[in-house]
């Protein structure tokens, strides 16, 4: 069992907006272990950014407990913050009027890293992220993808154990997003815990070991992508016949199985009821149609997410 690096327990936060109170977090609890990428999903205003900022101590929660590698970032920032790195959404995270090299040395300095170690670490990170050839150019002239890589390097300069990323692939092209995905996977495999806030379901499907879905400030779903999909239930059967279907057979299928859709030799049965599958099998067997392949279709993470957020 991998060590728990991040633990959040009973987190509550309410904002005052004028005379009204807006609950941003309502008793959120979760943890992230070493080697794990945890995706935090939620609609706009669900509380993702508030949750991340509470972990970083940038927002003070009303109640709850947070520990990072055993330390409380609210009450023990000097002990906890060296273990956390963050790339925040919306903010630039880095100085555009400095070079990538200077950004890394600056943030290493305010993290308390000795200069010699900072220089070595900066060189390694720039090399690893493919930025070494432009290390001394001003970041303001970089593409969005390169700027995000510099921001990631800054978040890693003090070798944190926990990485918090708020929409890291926002605005990135396909290649840059792919590079970042690979980098995140490598970082997790090296023993870090990564909490990833994102709206991009593809990223979640490709990267996340566990998914947390926030809805109106509360944790509505938690589990691996497979567990969440399985919990929602199977969506459909896809049967591929070995030969084209006769017209009479097609009519019979449509009449007895209105939930079926036909596309050449492929029949999609939009149900999880196996009795309906047996009905289709009987129809095919009666016409001596061989079956080439039977597949089950599980819901996507996007469908799981939409199921949650559409609840009243």
């Amino acid at each position: 069992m991998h060590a728990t690096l991040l633990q959040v327990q009973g987190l509550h936060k309410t904002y005052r907006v004028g005379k009204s109170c807006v609950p941003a977090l309502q008793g959120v609890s979760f943890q992230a272990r070493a080697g794990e990428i945890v995706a935090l999903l939620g609609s706009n205003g669900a509380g993702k950014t508030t949750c991340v900022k509470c972990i970083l101590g940038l927002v003070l929660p009303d109640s709850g407990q947070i520990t990072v590698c055993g330390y409380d970032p609210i009450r023990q920032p000097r002990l906890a913050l060296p273990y956390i790195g963050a790339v925040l959404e919306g903010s630039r995270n880095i100085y555009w009027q400095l070079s990538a090299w200077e950004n890394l040395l600056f943030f290493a300095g305010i993290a308390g890293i000795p200069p010699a170690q900072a220089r070595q670490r900066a060189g390694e990170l720039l090399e690893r992220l493919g930025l070494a050839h432009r290390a001394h150019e001003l970041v303001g002239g970089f593409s969005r993808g390169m700027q995000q890589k510099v921001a990631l390097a800054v978040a890693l300069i003090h070798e944190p154990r926990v990485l918090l990323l708020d929409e890291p692939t926002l605005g990135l092209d396909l290649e840059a997003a792919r590079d970042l995905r690979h980098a995140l996977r490598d970082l997790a495999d090296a023993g870090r815990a990564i909490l990833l806030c994102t709206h991009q379901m593809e990223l979640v499907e490709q990267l996340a070991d566990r998914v947390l879905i926030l809805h109106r400030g509360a944790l509505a779903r938690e589990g691996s992508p497979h567990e969440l999909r399985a919990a929602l239930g199977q969506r459909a059967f896809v049967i591929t016949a070995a030969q084209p279907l006769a017209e009479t057979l097609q009519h019979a299928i449509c009449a007895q199985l209105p939930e079926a859709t036909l596309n050449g030799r492929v029949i999609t049965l939009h149900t999880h009821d196996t009795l309906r599958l047996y009905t289709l099998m009987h129809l095919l067997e009666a016409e001596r149609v061989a079956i080439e392949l039977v597949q089950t279709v599980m819901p996507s993470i996007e469908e799981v997410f939409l199921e949650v957020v559409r609840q009243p």
Partner: protein
Amino acid sequence: MRHYWLNTLSALAFALMLFLMLYFGVRAFGAPQADFGALVIGYYAFMLTNVGFQRVASFLLTESQTGTLEQLALSPFGLAMTTLAHLVSYLLSVALFGAVGLLATMAITGMWLPFNLPAFGVMTLLLVGQAYAFGLAMGGLALRFKRIGDLMQVVSMVLVVFLLTPAEGVGNLAPLGPTWRLLQQWVQAGALPHATALGIEVARTVGLLLVGVLVYRWCERRVRQLGLLGRYA
């Protein structure tokens, strides 16, 4: 400085021009060399004091506008210490530019001023420390309210009033004024301040700094409670 070398050169040129203007201004009035020396020291101290007051709030506001304030707040040393480190480095750069400008002026004019650096350093440090106390409080308010430019101007005026407050009765309790007069006495009489007088100014500076720190920390905590740290100005 390296990336924006034109701005750096301009800052050096400005410092040189400023001291040359002071020099020729004093000569135009037919005043003795000592007056130029007093003017230079007084101006230098006032400039650094003003930086000590203005820089904290302007730094926090700039960081807030560029979006890097939250990253600075993730330093294990805390936002206040990061701000102090910035202020120290900025003061050193201002002092350095001023020193280069002054040296260049003295070289150009041939008028070399005697300069007791340790005494000047101690008294300027006390002035800057007291101004920094106000700057810290303003910095806290800047975090909370984001736009406080006009308030800064009001407080600047108040600080000038403190500087000019006569040394009578309650005037001795005012910040900045007594320390400023100590500096003037040193410049005019050439004698270093008495240890007791210096001790009182040190206590005044420490007391004001404590108040400034308390105000700043209260403001920063309030800003984190409200979730406003990352809000752009």
